[in-house]
């Protein structure tokens, strides 16, 4: 259908001179160029102003929908239980006194005794001293953890009691070291004396200790020690006290 036939007879008379009678020409060119001409009204100009008439007060919203409306809303992820099963005997609990509290109250921290004295520790065996040392180490580790927590939380109290408690533990450790050093020096001296001691036989042949009194009273006493393996009596000689 020719574009010219769309026009009303009146409009045809008003055609511009350079109009071409061709069906390929768009109707926009062939029509009268008034703003209120009917065919012109059919083509609406694009209102590129997105915020035209938008008012928060009058609750007027934008004419164009949001571009994100085309995108489907993401669904919330499934609830995942992030709790981890904690072993109640976990080794890291060794850095804390209780599982639910981090810092002790100053009253609880103050409830401690005095440090071990050197004389009291002299009576203890190597095993006891070794275990006591590591008990002190673990206790001090707990106190250092508490110190860090106190630095982080800054409660403003508790540092004095903790420091005096730590001092006592350090004194115990010092006393343990003192005792072990003394024992070592005494053993070194005893070893030197044993070489010149007539009752002690350091050659390795036969028993190490043969008390002279026993020999004089019962010379026919069977030598039970010689049945033992050679290393046993020598082991006792080196690790005593």
């Amino acid at each position, binding site marked *: 259908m020719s574009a010219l036939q769309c026009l009303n007879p009146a409009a045809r008379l008003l055609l511009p001179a350079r109009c071409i009678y061709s069906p390929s020409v768009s109707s926009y060119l062939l029509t009268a160029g008034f703003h209120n001409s009917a065919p012109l009204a059919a083509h609406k100009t694009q209102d590129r102003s997105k915020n035209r008439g938008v008012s928060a007060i009058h609750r007027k919203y934008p004419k164009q929908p949001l571009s994100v409306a085309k995108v489907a809303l993401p669904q919330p992820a499934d609830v995942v239980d992030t709790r981890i099963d904690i072993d109640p005997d976990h080794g890291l609990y060794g850095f804390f006194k209780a599982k639910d509290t981090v810092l002790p109250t100053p009253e609880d921290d103050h409830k401690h*005794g005095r440090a071990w004295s050197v004389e009291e520790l002299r009576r203890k065996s190597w095993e006891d001293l070794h275990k006591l040392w*590591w008990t002190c180490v673990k206790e001090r580790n707990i106190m250092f953890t508490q110190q860090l927590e106190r630095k982080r939380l800054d409660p403003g109290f508790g540092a004095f009691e903790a420091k005096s408690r730590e001092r006592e533990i350090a004194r115990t450790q010092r006393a343990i070291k003192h005792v072990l050093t003394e024992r070592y020096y*005494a053993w070194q001296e005893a070893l030197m004396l044993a070489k010149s001691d007539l009752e002690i036989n350091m050659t390795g042949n036969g028993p190490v200790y043969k008390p002279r009194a026993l020999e004089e009273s019962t010379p026919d006493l069977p030598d039970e020690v010689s049945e033992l393996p050679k290393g046993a009596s020598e082991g006792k000689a080196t690790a005593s006290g």
Partner: protein
Amino acid sequence: MVSPTQPLLRSLRRLALTTKMVGKGYYKGNRTGSMGRHTRHGGYIIDWNKVRTYVVPDLKGFMLTPFVTKKLPYTRGRYAGEEGPMSGELFLKRWKVENGQY
């Protein structure tokens, strides 16, 4: 040369060097100790005999704590004559009694 400020000059003539100062060749350790030996190619071989190992005993059932009751006064040892806690004679005597197997 690194020099201190005027107030420090009175008590500190020279600042202590750190590991970051001086040119090549200046080595300053950090109290960790020697754990092995260097190779001629710049490497390092660890000598496991030098590496320290901590032997922790089993503390199950151990009743002693780092503290002693305050009701008990601080005990000091009494040693007669020349025999002190470090004397070898006393050590030997005790050994004979306790470990001599007689």
